């Protein structure tokens, strides 16, 4: 499994450049609300993740139900790692994130009612809308990696915050690198 992870990811990344199914859809998901005031602010939005960034942690996923508390919060578990960082102008999930994503895939397969939101982000340089689309590419890369590991589409949503919710607001290369990432956030968190 581990050996094929990167090649499969690359293949999927490439295949994304192919066609996606054409759709003549009608409106779905339309909440259709006609609120008359415009002051609603989402529930805390853009949940802070508790990722331990940096080098990959060795070890494989453990079944979530061995923990007394919420296994996703156990600092010893790769499930507590939530951020996937990307190189400049890159949308490829690096191999160091394999253990972390395997752990989340196992958890999601063991809890079929669990749902994750993959929140892509971009650095602040350039157009806000273009950066929103770049963040989406990063979210989509992680979504595909989890799909390869067997997570069902219904359990995942890839969205983007673009440059709008930077973790580091400085205008430095280090800050930009910190902001080029996808966060794995569970819907019930």
């Amino acid at each position, binding site marked *: 499994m581990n050996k094929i992870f990167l090649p499969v990811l690359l293949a999927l990344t490439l295949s994304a450049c192919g066609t996606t199914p054409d759709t003549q859809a009608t409106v779905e998901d339309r909440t*259709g*609300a006609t609120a008359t005031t415009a002051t609603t602010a989402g529930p805390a939005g853009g949940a802070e993740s508790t990722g331990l960034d940096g080098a990959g942690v060795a070890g494989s996923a453990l079944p979530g139900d061995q923990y007394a508390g919420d296994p996703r919060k156990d600092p010893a578990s790769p499930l507590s790692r939530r951020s996937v960082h990307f190189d400049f102008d890159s949308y490829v999930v690096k191999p160091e994130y394999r253990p972390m994503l395997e752990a989340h895939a196992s958890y999601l397969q063991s809890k079929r009612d669990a749902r994750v939101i993959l929140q892509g982000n971009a650095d602040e340089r350039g157009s806000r809308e273009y950066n929103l689309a770049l963040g989406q590419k990063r979210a989509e890369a992680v979504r595909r990696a989890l799909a390869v590991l067997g997570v069902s589409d219904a359990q995942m949503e890839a969205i983007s915050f673009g440059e709008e919710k930077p973790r580091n607001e400085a205008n430095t290369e280090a800050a930009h690198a910190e902001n080029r990432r996808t966060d794995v956030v569970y819907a019930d968190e």
Partner: protein
Amino acid sequence: MLRAVLYFPLLCLALLSVTFSARGAMEIQVIGGAASKIAVAMVPFQAAPGQPEPALPRIAGDDLERSGQFRLVDVTGMQQPVAPAQVNYGVWRGKGADALVIGQVAALPGGRFEVRFYLLDVIKQTQLAAFSYTITAAQWRATAHQIADIVYEKLTGIPGAFSSRIAYVQKQGKRFELRVADADGQNPRTVVRSNEPVISPRFSPDGARVVYVSFEDRKPVVYVQSLRDGGRSQVAAFKGSNSAPAWAPDGRRLAVVLTRDQASQIYLINADGSGLTRLTRGGNLDTEPVFSPDGQSIYFTSDRGGSAQIYRVAAKGGEPRRVTFSGGYNVSPAVSPDGRNLAYISREDGRFSVVLHELASGQTRVLTDTARDESPSFAPNGQAVLYATVQGGRGVLGTVSLDGKTRTRLSESGVDAREPAWGP
């Protein structure tokens, strides 16, 4: 005959920098200007007791000066006619004036005012325009902008855009406000308040509604909101991200970018959220759609060629054709009202600037000298481009004329302004 004034020798003001006092929310700064300007004397109108401040000729004069095409003649110490019969043309000609604006304000019962104004051609000693308005105090600034529009059109032959409005997003701390203001940045009104980001506001073609992207639902969702009653609805809240809305010229359809089929792709949707159809296909990144004024084409940004470039596709679908070829990053297209020019953001040596691109010839011109420009949009009369940039570490709004020679700043102290859009 209206153009006659333009041909008269005018004072050359190669570089002019005027800071108007901050009479309200925004400070306006004009940098540079056309080499030859029309000299207009804005004579104080006969005042009425209780009339609002500042005076009408002052507001209209600021408008004209901001366009870069006018120079205001100093009227202090001059005779101040309030009706055409009182005008001594020789005196004004001696002051270098090409045109003269005079008028009267009279108080009416019920807090209303009657405004009369006259535009006179000093050279030919003729009347170019005369109008009267019966207004409330609340219509004061709007009346001044209308006077400026009339003066501008009579003297340049091009409709004015001083009565139009702009929308922008203001960030203060962690709070975001979508605001609508007059084209001079005054009279700002907040139409959306949120603790989450708001981006990409666009006026509907009739100016009655605004579409924007809000992150209040923990992801980008497209909302349409009435500017009359504030009522709003979600137009696109599909799985994934929903963003980059653009109105079709008929005001009934929108182009939006959705990721419901994975990659960011352009779709068309009715303004009530019905009738979704997909426009672009493939796994590339397509975003920032904008309609041509005739509604037949859509310009958009795509990475399909390996770098961010602008493409055009028929609004009914088909094969997109590339529009920009130079440089590695051309984004955020805006189309001029006559459909002949694009304005967009181009990156060159790490600097992001506003570029004007004539579609017929492919010729381009860099309009700005700032390094972090974003979100260009054309004035309704096509004579200037509104954009966002960063100055002193915070976001400010600016306008630039199509020749790049006149730039203005609309800025408010202590806040970050971004994501501007020029509306009707």
